[in-house]
């Protein structure tokens, strides 16, 4: 079959099961764009900014488990993807970013719209390619998707010079890829799993500690089985939210800087930390020297480089979380093992949970915490997906939205990218057309990406956007209040912010304001039941703070608030 390079890209994408692609075309991707116009199998979502294309592909991958695909032209189009690629890299999300490049004959001459995108993205990709011969397209696309989606997932960049897109080739798709330097360890070592089981049996104060790796490997069922079977309390990182049901009695809540008192206290007192798919990030662990001081640590992760990186591990297990836990659960079942030596600890945890529940502030004003907990209640029976920007609203969402399944909380964890929420809602809604997708956003985060309301309007995506509007860059303001003598500087957004209702209406999107508790239920219901997109400008109390809080660098038992 004779195809041009651009047609070979499209054919490869079809064969790899791609159905949606987010992007903005340009001079260097014209042949590719033209080839995409001739396929029925792939829908092109025209975005308003390339950063949003990358974030949409990222959230699409998080919501569906498939590889997300985005595309941009050479030069500025490609460099605009960079933040989105870095975001996917930090959270281990499988995306493939296809960029146009100037023709091979002029690469390196500072040609119009030339940027060395494979060079620029080198430290933030799992792998990348600059394809200089179209004959390599089918194989390298298969390779790229394999690398992005297996092992510890991550972003892959494919740079396609314009002349390569026009080169005619004989299309042949590979049956499988063979990468001598890439063989992720999937199955855990049985002896290590036995050791982990021994530690579990011995432990009188165990904590299971789960993260994004549980979501990525679809290990949530195995986690639940183990937790319930042995009655082990579960703590989670921001990236692990939803992987263990929030409404479960064994759920202790989030760990770390804005984690629950119960979880942080349990971590400081446990004798076994059974960690699955986590990377011991500083926001989760606080002061590493004093982290889990009495605990032996079992660490299950597919990336050997994560084991021992930040904390010393007693039982390392390299492997896919779901496969390792399945083997462990099978050992428990086959030997009919029961665990009772830790039940006093479980009672202790239940007492802490009762003593330190997350509470919304006692206030007659509309507080963000109360608003978010109301949204959670109103949407509880729906097929709910929450996306967020980054800042206070993100932490309150992690605290007050109840989610009982994985892939429902889509947030920028590692990179902490403000502006992630809106494009993430677009990607999640495209991937899950029947879900109720709510972007809980900040007024600061939202204004970094508001141009993509245009994308929502164009495709009439029924995305709901709740702007937690406190007229501040709230998290920075909180730190200025607590650690910089309340000297607020460069954080006030009151001046210069638009009327969000008028702005949304200018895009043809229904919108309204809520500013008091009395009208809250009605507005939330109206939003949830509206069939199309909807923006709710929630004018909340200005100077609310996120608590509990463990200051940066402090130990997890140095908690402010929440008692």
């Amino acid at each position, binding site marked *: 079959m004779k195809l041009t390079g651009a047609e070979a890209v499209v054919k490869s994408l079809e064969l790899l099961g791609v159905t949606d692609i987010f992007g903005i075309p340009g001079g260097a991707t014209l042949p590719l764009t033209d080839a995409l116009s001739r396929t029925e199998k792939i829908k092109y979502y025209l975005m308003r900014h390339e950063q949003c294309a990358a974030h949409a592909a990222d959230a699409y991958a998080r919501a569906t488990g498939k590889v997300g695909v985005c595309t941009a032209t050479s030069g500025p189009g490609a460099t605009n993807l960079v933040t989105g690629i870095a975001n996917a890299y930090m959270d281990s999300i499988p995306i493939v970013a296809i960029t146009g490049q100037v023709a091979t004959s002029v690469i390196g001459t500072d040609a119009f719209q030339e940027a060395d995108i494979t060079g620029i993205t*080198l430290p933030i990709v799992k792998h990348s390619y*600059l394809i200089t011969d179209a004959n390599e397209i089918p194989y390298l696309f298969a390779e790229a998707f394999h690398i992005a989606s297996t092992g510890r997932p991550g972003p892959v960049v494919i740079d396609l010079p314009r002349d390569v897109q026009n080169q005619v080739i004989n299309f042949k798709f590979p049956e499988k890829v063979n990468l001598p*330097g890439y063989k992720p360890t999937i199955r855990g070592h049985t002896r290590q799993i036995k050791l982990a089981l021994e530690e579990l049996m011995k432990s009188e104060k165990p904590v299971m500690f789960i993260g994004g790796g549980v979501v990525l490997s679809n290990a949530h069922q195995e986690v639940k089985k183990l937790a319930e079977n042995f009655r082990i309390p579960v703590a989670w990182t921001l990236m692990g939210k939803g992987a263990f049901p929030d409404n479960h009695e064994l759920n202790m809540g989030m760990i770390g800087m804005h984690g629950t008192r119960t979880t942080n206290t349990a971590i400081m007192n446990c004798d076994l930390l059974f960690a699955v798919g986590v990377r011991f990030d500083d926001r989760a662990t606080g002061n590493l020297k004093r982290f889990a001081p009495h605990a032996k640590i079992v660490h299950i992760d597919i990336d050997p*480089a994560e084991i021992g*990186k930040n904390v010393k591990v007693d039982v390392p297990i390299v492997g896919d979380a779901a496969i390792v836990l399945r083997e462990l659960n099978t050992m428990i079942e086959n030997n009919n093992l029961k665990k009772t030596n830790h039940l006093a600890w479980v009672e202790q945890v239940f007492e802490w949970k009762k003593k330190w529940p997350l509470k919304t502030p006692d206030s007659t004003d509309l507080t963000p915490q109360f608003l978010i907990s109301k949204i959670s209640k109103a949407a509880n029976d729906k097929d709910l997906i929450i996306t967020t920007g980054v800042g206070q609203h993100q932490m309150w969402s992690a605290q007050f939205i109840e989610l009982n399944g994985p892939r429902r909380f889509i947030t920028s964890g590692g990179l902490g990218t403000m502006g992630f929420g809106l494009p993430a809602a677009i990607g999640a809604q495209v991937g899950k057309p029947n879900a109720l997708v709510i972007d809980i956003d900040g007024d600061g985060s939202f204004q970094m990406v508001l141009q993509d309301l245009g994308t929502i309007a164009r495709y009439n995506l029924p995305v709901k956007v709740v702007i937690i509007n406190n007229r501040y860059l709230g998290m920075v303001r909180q730190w200025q209040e607590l650690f910089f003598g309340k000297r607020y500087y460069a954080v006030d957004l009151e001046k210069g912010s638009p009327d969000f209702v008028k702005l949304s209406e200018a895009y043809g999107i229904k919108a309204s304001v809520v500013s008091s508790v009395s009208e809250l239920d009605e507005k939330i219901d109206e939003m949830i039941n509206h069939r199309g997109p909807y923006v709710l400008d929630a004018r909340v109390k200005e100077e609310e703070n996120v608590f509990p809080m463990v200051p940066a660098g402090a130990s997890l038992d140095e908690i402010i608030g929440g008692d």
Partner: protein
Amino acid sequence: MKHTLSVLVENKPGVLARVAGLFRRRGFNIHSLAVAPTENPNLSRMTIVVDLEGKPLEQVEKQLHKLVNVLKIQDFLPHEAVERELALIKVHSTKETRAEIIQICDIFRAKIVDVSQDSLAIEVTGTEDKIDAIVSLLKPYRIIDLARTGKVAVSRGRK
């Protein structure tokens, strides 16, 4: 402390940048680096001498392993490998000093590879220490140019 890593990589464009970038990003200092294709033209061997400064080598090895183009990493302990470096030294010489310099070269089994009225070019191979020693002996004659390859290494015996 310095460590010698021998890294077998695919001989593809950009691989050196990936490896060097990884060392930089993870905060490791490359002391010397030598790269060339192996007997199989699809593969290259990199000999990297890395300055650890108290950081664990394990982390950088694991991160290197994650690069798709990296096939094999060997971490050589001093006695497990044959290690050599080559230096080309251009040194100022006069009628009076030429003979002395040639004598020094004989002691080090170095070769004179170019000679002119006022300079000699010397080729010397050996361990880092040996090269350091000849360099220091030649310094008083005024070294005009010095190029060292950095260390290359292969394992000893059957390994």
